């Protein structure tokens, strides 16, 4: 996996590109996800790629962009835009661009998921609003970096 720190834009936003990350629609994972959202049938649920956005590499990049601030991420908006459906037990590659805007403050994740032959399948966009949270003992509390 490659990880690239993008140049910081002039408007103060910070960004990071993660990937390409190999991901897979493993049948057991898909079926567990489908069952948890009351789904039926054999298709890969439209929202299944959220599982891949929870990968540790992405969570770590998010934490780094937030630079130790105390925060609660609140999911504000989400979209999935499909060019072709994901199919069961197939390999894909995912690239994620993460952008943090201190002015908002929001964090936007834009993921592209494609076949290994670079055929785009789905674009995913997640918008997280960041709410300050400074309560002592909170599991969200992070120590400010030195």
């Amino acid at each position, binding site marked *: 996996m490659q990880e690239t720190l993008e140049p910081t834009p002039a408007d103060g936003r910070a960004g990071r590109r993660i990937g390409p990350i190999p991901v897979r629609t493993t049948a057991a994972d898909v079926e567990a996800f489908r069952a948890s959202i009351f*789904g*039926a049938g054999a298709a890969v649920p*439209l929202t299944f790629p959220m599982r891949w956005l929870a990968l540790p590499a992405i969570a770590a990049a998010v934490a780094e962009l937030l630079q130790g601030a105390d925060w609660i991420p609140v999911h504000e908006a*989400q979209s999935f835009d499909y060019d072709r459906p994901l199919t069961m037990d197939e390999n894909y590659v995912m690239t994620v661009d993460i952008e943090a805007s201190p002015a908002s403050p929001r964090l936007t994740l834009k993921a592209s998921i494609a076949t290994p032959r670079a055929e785009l399948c789905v674009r995913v966009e997640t918008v997280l609003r960041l709410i300050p*949270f400074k309560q002592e003992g*909170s599991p969200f509390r992070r120590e400010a970096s030195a």
Partner: protein
Amino acid sequence: MTPAPASQEGAIYPAIGDTFPVLTFGPIDASRVTAYAAASGDTNPLHLDPAVAQSAGLPAPPIHGMLMMGCFEPALREWRADLCVIRLSTKFLRPVFSGTAIEISGRVVQLRDGQPKKIVVRLMAHGAGGDLAAVGEALLVPANTEL
């Protein structure tokens, strides 16, 4: 709901203004939230631990917004299994707390010209007390359409 006549390739398009029956999911209890957390990898303790939710000023753990959004897809399939969703978007407005049900409803708001036509459905998720918890939009085409 009265489907409009087919306009191409035998597809039966809904009409603007058509609605589908309200579908209730849940009550979504802690075990469902835990199952979603495990399946999605979103193990944010806010959704799983009542004490953490309370420390954040919430009366109970909120269910994952994505669990709520995930219910749009089975609702759409229940309405029209012959249509395929190619875009789904949602804005999350209010938390829905663990132990309550959500009601999903939808209405056709636009038919976009093209080959094939694209059907725009406005979606709503209501929580306890009828609070509007999320609004969404789905773009659908007849199943088996080559995009």
